[in-house]
């Protein structure tokens, strides 16, 4: 096996040096528990972007010449050790020109030191973390595109406060969260935010990620006298919570769920009854750039992107491409450009990073008439107004 390994290693190394192409490598979870997340938010966008760039003749360099993108993609099998080694391989064996990050907060952090050490700009597209400012200090060529939990929570709180004033909801919130980094980060931000806004958190529990039955949790939550139900959940939980809420006829005026509610398959899973459900993300249906992106995604990948992370990941790739166009393949220069430049992306004509973080993010979205529209930042460009209370389940 060793001999064979060396042969492949040699082979990949040789085309990496091919001057006509730009090699871009990534390791994503094609199998294992993280495959579901990667497969929705990260991998399709990487594929879409490469396909589009190559269809247009390749990446444009400052001198106007173009180079096709070669991709080296590995499966990290949802293991931290694998993802680290795969990135090491991309950096030191395949010597690729750029490395795209894996899916998930944990894995982005796992590879961050390596990317920094080897001088690769790290466009963390699918990682939600409040520590982003710290990380930017630590690894100055790291870029964070999904915001932090406080952002999402504050945006939600703002909406809740308005609804309470309008008399739509009472002062109680029932809140559940998945017991992993994502859920806990959010819930940790939510507790002080809600309390400071004068809300009472009358039910506040975390559940293990393996949980698949929510009958009891919802029945306890529904007896908490809360008009607001918030779940910081992952797709399997989001789906199960929805189905169970329908069965138990649990229909609080505010029904906010985590990852998965912004998936295009969600309405089908919920039996079509999604009107009024809120979650992270959301789009502006009138944004033509975004609409075009969604159409292309469906064309190339065969299915629609989700309404939250996908567009951010895709935008990060566009920014990478534009940076290369401006400064060439020098990674330090690209990092510098990412940090300081202004870009035209699916998010808007003037997308820029603040302190290496993308801040122009839609924090809260809501299903309205079959679309998952952004309702926050409230009053922002192209934002719809939240429509509450949520109507009855069909």
């Amino acid at each position, binding site marked *: 096996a060793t001999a064979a390994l060396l042969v492949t290693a040699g082979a990949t190394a040789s085309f990496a040096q091919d001057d006509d192409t730009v090699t871009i490598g990534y390791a994503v979870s094609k199998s294992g528990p993280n495959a579901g997340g990667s497969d929705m938010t990260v991998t399709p966008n990487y594929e879409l972007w490469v396909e589009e760039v190559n269809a247009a003749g390749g990446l444009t360099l400052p001198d106007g010449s173009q180079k096709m993108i070669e991709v080296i993609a590995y*499966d990290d099998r949802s293991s931290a*050790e694998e993802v680290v080694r795969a990135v090491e391989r991309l950096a030191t064996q395949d010597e690729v020109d750029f490395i795209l990050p894996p899916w998930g907060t944990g894995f982005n952090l796992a590879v961050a030191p390596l990317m920094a050490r080897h001088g690769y700009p790290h466009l963390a597209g699918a990682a939600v973390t409040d520590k982003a400012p710290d990380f930017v200090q630590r690894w100055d060529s790291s870029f964070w595109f999904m915001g932090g939990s406080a952002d999402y929570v504050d945006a939600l709180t703002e909406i809740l406060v308005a609804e309470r004033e309008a008399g739509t909801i009472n002062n109680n919130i029932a809140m559940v969260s998945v017991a*992993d980094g994502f859920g806990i980060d959010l819930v940790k931000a939510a507790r002080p935010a809600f309390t400071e806004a004068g809300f009472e958190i009358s039910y506040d529990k975390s559940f293990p990620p393996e949980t698949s039955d929510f009958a009891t949790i919802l029945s306890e939550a529904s007896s908490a006298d809360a008009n607001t139900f918030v779940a910081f959940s992952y797709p399997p939980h989001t789906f199960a919570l929805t189905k169970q809420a329908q069965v138990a006829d649990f229909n609080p005026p505010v029904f906010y769920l985590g990852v998965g509610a912004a998936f295009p398959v969600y309405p089908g899973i919920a039996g079509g009854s999604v009107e009024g459900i809120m979650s992270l993300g959301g789009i502006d249906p009138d944004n033509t750039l975004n609409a075009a992106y969604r159409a292309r995604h469906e064309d190339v990948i065969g299915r629609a992107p989700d309404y939250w992370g996908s567009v951010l990941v895709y935008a990060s790739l566009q920014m990478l491409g534009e940076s290369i166009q401006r400064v060439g393949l020098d990674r330090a220069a690209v990092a510098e450009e990412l940090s300081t430049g202004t870009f035209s992306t699916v998010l808007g004509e003037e997308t820029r990073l603040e302190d290496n973080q993308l801040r122009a993010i839609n924090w809260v979205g809501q299903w309205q008439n079959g679309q998952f529209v952004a309702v926050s930042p409230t009053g922002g460009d192209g934002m719809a107004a939240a429509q509450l209370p949520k109507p009855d389940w069909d």
Partner: protein
Amino acid sequence: MKTSYAFILAAVALVILAAAPLFIPEYWTGVLLGMTGYVTLATAWALFSGPTRYVSLATVAFFGVGAYTVAVLNETLPYPLVLLCAAGIGAVMALVVGLSTLRLAGVYFVIFTFGLAELVRQTVSWWEVNVTYTMGRYVFLPFEGRHIYWQLLALATVTLLISWAIGRSRIGLAMKAIGDDETVAAHAGVDVTRLKLMLFVISATLITLVGAIQAPRWTYIEPSIVFNPTVSFMTLIMALLGGAMRLWGPLVGAVPLFLLFEWLSVSFPDHFSIILGLLFILIVFVMPNGVLAKFDELRKGGRT
């Protein structure tokens, strides 16, 4: 005579392995690192599970606890002390587990240990969520791959030495006897309980240390990362493949299997599972008693 040759050979191999990171690309150091990690895990696992045939799936419980200890303490204690703490925690946990599982045998023990690993993971999760309010911890130790590799290499050497020493001692004989028939062993004067416990603790402590040493490599640690049951399964499969009853068995199982995994995932990232699965089935059919047994068989066959 033969032993001293073997020792010299092993020492030379060790020196070469230790010097390797200075000459090879970082990625290959990473491969060596991962491999050494699994060699240590499999050898340590086989220390207890090989002769006694108590198949343990608790590997990742100890591995994860080791990693977590580092994650929790790395900012408060000097690193060597952190490792010591990890070893201590692993040992104490193994003692408790060992004491409570003595009545179980066969598949009941197997699943018990699996359940145990899950329980540890759930408990750590719950503790972090509800008591310390932190899910996900950071390990910012200034280690590169090769630093971790050297530590693992040292641990692997120690583990193999322990395994070698036990294999030659009366304890090794007693462990094999326990694997065959505990009652007979007891009547022959073996304090079955104590011995099993001792070996379990040694094995678990070594496993804990592997987790502790590897932790800095991932920067970020949360239960779903460090308590990944795959670790238990891989360890088991590697040891069984090489032959868990022999000193070099786990090593001989871990190295090719690890390289195979690596090669497959590099060359066939999209069909890794299918190819791996088919190869696995093939291996079972071609080498029913593990790689070393197959070698023995071929050697014997060659002679006659």
